[in-house]
């Protein structure tokens, strides 16, 4: 088994090489590679991808890294997010653990995992070099019922009753539609002053800089614009003809940056990621006592974009949605687990992490 190490300054040539183009399986898409090569927080020598191959040059496993900066004692320090981890399940001992250990070595164990799958959590708990923080401040709201899209993926028995689920979805959604229309009309007539941006402007950047001091990753204008302008998922019609284990193409994908005013003052900003009818609040900054103003604009965006599911991990927003009247058919609390190196508990537990931090702003 051979391990290939790819650094930021190798990425473009890597995805333009003949061996990449001719490979039936790829470890990174061209879009992800181009985006990662422009990461404002990465240095040319930062490692971003580890690939294990067999003697026939076939990819057995890969581990993706996303360089970032963490603020410790008001000073930025280099760290890496795990951005993907995959191993060929048909190959026994496919090298995925060797890649993980190598990632630990190359990052000096400054390795963070933004949203743990049960398998990754199992591995990290046994290694005992990582701590895990549970985030229980999440909420998911359903504006449309999609049982036919969700249940069969969770339990195969539901596949047999797909037509029934589809009918149930249609009935509930038809009954709920008038409620959504009332919400939309009510919000539209409230004369809320907001602006949908193409990019983060200077005014918003200044607003964010006043609100990010207690954040672990302290996003700024340059990084948020990089996220907006350099997605990892494509919406064009060109289908990938190579085997790739992660999402690379969807029908609908966009970032919506929105700033909100009250009495001519900028009071809030949020970045909403829309992905095939699902909306995720990736970044959010707001003044005190403005959460209801923000949520009204958020609901307008959800309704205007025909969203069926909304997810946020933001304490104020979650509490407000759960306690107040809302347009959702139903809501559910959400949890997620973030892993970080042992010894970083003080920083991670005392500072804010936005839901978009890590690769969550891209997928």
């Amino acid at each position, binding site marked *: 088994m051979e391990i290939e190490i790819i650094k930021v300054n190798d990425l473009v040539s890597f995805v333009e090489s003949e061996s990449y183009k001719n490979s039936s399986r790829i470890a990174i898409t061209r879009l992800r590679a181009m985006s990662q090569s422009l990461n404002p927080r990465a240095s040319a020598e930062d490692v971003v991808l580890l690939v294990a191959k067999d003697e026939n040059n076939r990819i057995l496993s890969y581990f993706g890294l996303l360089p970032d900066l963490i603020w410790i004692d008001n000073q930025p320090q280099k760290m890496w997010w795990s951005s993907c981890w995959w*191993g060929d399940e048909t*190959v*026994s001992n496919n090298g995925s653990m*060797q890649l993980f250990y*190598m990632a630990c070595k190359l990052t000096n164990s400054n390795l963070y995992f933004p949203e743990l799958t049960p398998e990754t959590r199992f591995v990290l708990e*046994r290694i005992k070099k990582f701590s895990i923080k549970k985030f229980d401040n999440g909420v998911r709201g359903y504006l449309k019922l999609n049982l036919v899209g969700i249940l069969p993926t969770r339990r195969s028995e539901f596949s047999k009753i797909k037509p029934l689920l589809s009918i149930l979805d249609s009935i509930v959604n038809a009954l709920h539609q008038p409620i959504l229309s009332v919400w939309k009309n009510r919000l539209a007539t409230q004369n809320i002053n907001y602006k949908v941006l193409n990019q983060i402007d200077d005014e918003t950047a200044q607003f964010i800089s006043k609100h990010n001091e207690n954040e672990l990753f302290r996003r700024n204008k340059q990084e948020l614009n990089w996220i907006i302008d350099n997605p990892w998922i494509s919406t064009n019609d060109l289908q990938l003809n190579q085997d790739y284990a992660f999402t690379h193409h969807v029908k609908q994908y966009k970032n919506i940056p929105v700033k909100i005013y009250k009495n001519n003052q900028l009071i809030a900003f949020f970045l909403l990621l829309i992905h095939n009818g699902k909306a995720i609040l990736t970044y959010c900054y707001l003044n005190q006592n403005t959460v209801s103003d923000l949520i009204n604009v958020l609901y307008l965006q959800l309704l205007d974009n025909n969203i069926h599911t909304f997810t946020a991990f933001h304490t104020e927003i979650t509490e407000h949605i759960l306690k107040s009247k809302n347009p959702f058919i139903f809501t559910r609390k959400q949890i997620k687990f973030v892993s970080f190196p042992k010894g970083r508990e003080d920083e991670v537990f005392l500072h804010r992490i936005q839901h978009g931090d890590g690769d969550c702003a891209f997928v």
Partner: protein
Amino acid sequence: MNNNQLLPQLQEIFRSIFENPLLELTSTTSAKDIPNWDSMNHVSLISEIEFQFEVEFDLDDLIGMNNVASILQSLSTKLKNKI
């Protein structure tokens, strides 16, 4: 402790982790000979070896451990250094 002495103990650990009481381990046993050697079994295997032999592997050892021979090599070096 030489490799011949370590192998039976390692074999017991492998049998327990891979739930195969008939598994026969030799220094040439490769991953291809052991089905289900996935990341979760690998990390359980290493944890169990560290626990049973009271050693802690460093990252360089762990990176190289992808077959029985390399596990034996790293383990015997660790045990020698322990004495």
